[in-house]
């Protein structure tokens, strides 16, 4: 299953520990490579559109729900399928990188 860029960063952010929505946003934003404009944070709408899709596909699931300052914080974690999808995509990116490096003789 090919993952788009936001989905990849979200799964990667969840690889180490369960996170809540804003935590995913900050971690995923830090994982993105910087470009000429610096490190661009992801939008909350992008994260939540991806979270809904990933949850529907069974790649993430709810870990727990906590109340913080009277507000709900829902923590998400990777499922086994999500872990496999992340590994597969990481291998694909690694293969692409190696192919590019061989061609460029880096």
């Amino acid at each position, binding site marked *: 299953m090919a993952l788009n860029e936001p989905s990849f960063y979200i799964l990667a952010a969840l690889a180490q520990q369960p996170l*809540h929505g804003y*935590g995913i*946003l900050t971690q995923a*934003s*830090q994982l993105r490579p910087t470009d000429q404009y610096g490190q661009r944070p992801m939008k*909350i709408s992008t994260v*939540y*559109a991806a979270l809904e*899709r990933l949850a529907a596909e069974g790649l993430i699931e709810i870990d727990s729900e906590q109340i913080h300052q*009277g507000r709900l914080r829902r923590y998400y974690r990777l499922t086994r399928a999500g872990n496999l999808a992340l590994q597969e995509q990481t291998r694909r990116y690694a293969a692409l990188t190696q192919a590019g490096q061989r061609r460029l003789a880096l």
Partner: protein
Amino acid sequence: MTALPSATSVADPLVDASDLHRAELAYRRILRLLPAPYRRDWEADLLGAYLDGVAARLAAVGAGPVPLAVSLSDRLDIARLAARLHLSGDPSTGKAFIWGEALRRMVLVALLAQVGFAALALCQLAARIAGEGPGTGWGESRGEILLTVGSLTITVLTSLLWVSITWLLITHRRAPMRVACLAQVAWVFATSGFNASAAGLDRQALVVQALEPTVSAVAAALLLAALVLAFHPDAPPVNRRAWLTRFAASAVAGVVVFAAAPSAGADPNSTAIGWQAFATTRCAALACLAGVCTLGWLATSKRRRRGHLQRRVMLALLLALVWSAAGVFAAALSLAQLAIGEHGGPATTLAPEAFSTAIAIVMATAFALHARHLLHRYPDQASMTPHPAEETP
């Protein structure tokens, strides 16, 4: 651009809880833009993320008053999410997907019409440069020459921008397409006053000359807004081969219309700006008509459930009526403008109007049939299955 402050580093004591509560109410109001089933499942979590963002921003700059209004960037962000959800690209979402597909096809057809009129405008330019056919002169006085050159320049540049936008959309280059859309909006509004300012007409003609391009500019802006909303990142990509073929067919159709106009009693060279006005207003109207045909078919088809779509069909019909009224208003202004000017009375201008309206009807009918064919291909269950969130009590 700076990175976001980490959620774990938020110094919560710096933030006044009652102010955050007021901010929460403001966010809740904006979040009403999202579909109700989605809000039922995600609103509390989404609200928490936005408020965490507010708290983190405040903590990053030190203690200060909590903003009681939602920031512009968050408003735009929520509006973007609402567009993604209401015009979904996922067939399993049912109604939202059908709405999204209807709007995406309406926009594509309207853009193809613009490509046709761009070809027409380039034919007009070529004929004028070659000096062939009636009405191809540049004018007698310096003012007339300036008006002619200015009008043609505006028409050709506007047309080329429409062609670029359509090409970028079909070839899946979304980022430059958005830039081109912004440029087009700025361009059509900036040039909408040209005719009136350059013409030096009396008061009655000035009103006519000023209003028609403004109506066209608003119609163009609505079309571009619909384009950006409909083709969000989750929308299915445009079928490149099929729409490139239609792109070429539209360009050929524009040339054919130019060649056929004289035999229909119309002078293809006399209304350079009028053709562009026709392109924007009439195409917006025909796109709405096509959309209503699609939704009407969905609502009345026996194989689909009626109740869910009836209200939205009525809303679409109302919008189409308003939009069509704007198109008719622009056409009436166009007639009045030509009657006032020295191009002749309504008798000679009715022929091209009738000719162009006939083209619009043919295009709308073709689109309605095409949309019906396309939507038939979606399985009934998939297209009308409720969103997973709708099933939860």
